[in-house]
């Protein structure tokens, strides 16, 4: 197993020291974490989406969080998903992308703000698609 001593120590502590090595591997190796949905994050800061383009695997839930003192709103350029409500400061909006493709989106309040989510097919060998 390729788990460093440091990580092993931390995980053992977190697992109250009672876990087996097999269980630890299930926690730290994503391809085995079948019950944890993958997540992606986009920050809205100074009227900019960061990262401007985010690439994720199908099934990933992407969460946008507004860090500005002004509301923003998320809308798909081609209506692939329902637009968010207006996001006030520190509000978030999430959408789970299940179908591979390139999704262009924008702020429907400040439409010069644009971003892209690229959704790739979940990698081969996994049970779920």
């Amino acid at each position, binding site marked *: 197993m390729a788990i460093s001593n440091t990580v092993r120590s931390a995980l053992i502590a977190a697992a109250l020291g009672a876990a087996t090595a097999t269980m630890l591997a299930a926690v730290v190796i994503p391809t085995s974490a079948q019950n944890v949905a993958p997540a992606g994050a986009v920050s809205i800061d*100074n009227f900019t989406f960061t990262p401007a383009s985010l690439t994720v695997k199908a099934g990933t839930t992407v969460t946008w969080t507004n860090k500005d003192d*002004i509301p923003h709103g998320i809308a798909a350029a081609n209506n692939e998903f329902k637009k968010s409500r*207006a996001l006030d400061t520190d509000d978030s909006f999430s959408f789970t992308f299940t179908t591979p493709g390139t999704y262009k989106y924008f702020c429907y*309040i400040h*439409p*010069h703000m*644009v971003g892209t989510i690229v959704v790739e097919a979940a990698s081969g060998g996994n049970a779920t698609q």
Partner: protein
Amino acid sequence: MESDRDDGVSRRKVLECMTWAGTGVLWTISGGVPHSLGIMGEAQAEESKSLTFLQLSDSHVGFDKPANPNALGTLEEAIVKVNALPKKPAFAIHTGDISHLSLESQFDDADRIISQSHLDVHYVPGEHDFLDPDQKFYKDRYGRGTKGAGWYSFDASGVHFIGLVNVFNLKAGGLGDLGADQIEWLEDDVKHLSASTPIVVFAHIPLWTIYPDWGWGTDDAAQALSYLKRFGSVTVLNGHIHQVMQKVEGNVTFHTARSTAFPQPAPGQGPSPGPMKVPDDQLRTMLGIANVTFKQNEQRLAIIDTPLKA
């Protein structure tokens, strides 16, 4: 001199347009440029027969962030200022962003304060006024009898006023947008007017491109303004950028008003067009109202931008 500008209206053309339709008085704008006086005292010099109206903009009622924790309070200060004007304006226009988040309570608060001016207020919406899920609060409250998303026109003292909406159904990557339906309506609305009719157009986002990187412009404004080219005097009043800016292009004068809520940076002079935090003692010098006067016989249109604090 502005009258010598190659791209401006010729002296002859200005003179041709000086007759104020319906009243027979002379009409012009001084060298094509609305005069910006900047201090309230000079407003007292206006003649008794002139038309004076008020412009309020960007109240953002509900805004409570560090740039101004009490936007409702500064709106109230603005109305106190209005009520202290030496001559009561005939009416007011509000160029949008009445509320910050389109909550009913925010519109209620705005109405409660603005009504203390006892002025008839003609509104156009800002993008912050269409944030309720069904986008209906604005239209229900302020847009009765208007077309489309809320555009309309009316006449006052021989001046034709046109309220436009450029914050509805905005497109990815774009700026403000009027849309084909509204532009078609505009063409029809002005078709039968004499070229000597003074025109005032008001809308939230500037109808001239100020700074596209920050969305400060309207994609299809040029087409809309093409229908106003034949008029001798066109004044375009906007908000959105929370600062006074002015430009003259031919016979069209563009002017933006201050917000009553919070300042925004000059174009490109900050990380974003968001609310700008300034020292507390400077805030009120950057907020304010505008008073617009058509001065008969004085051959001048005056826009007086008055900050809450000099």
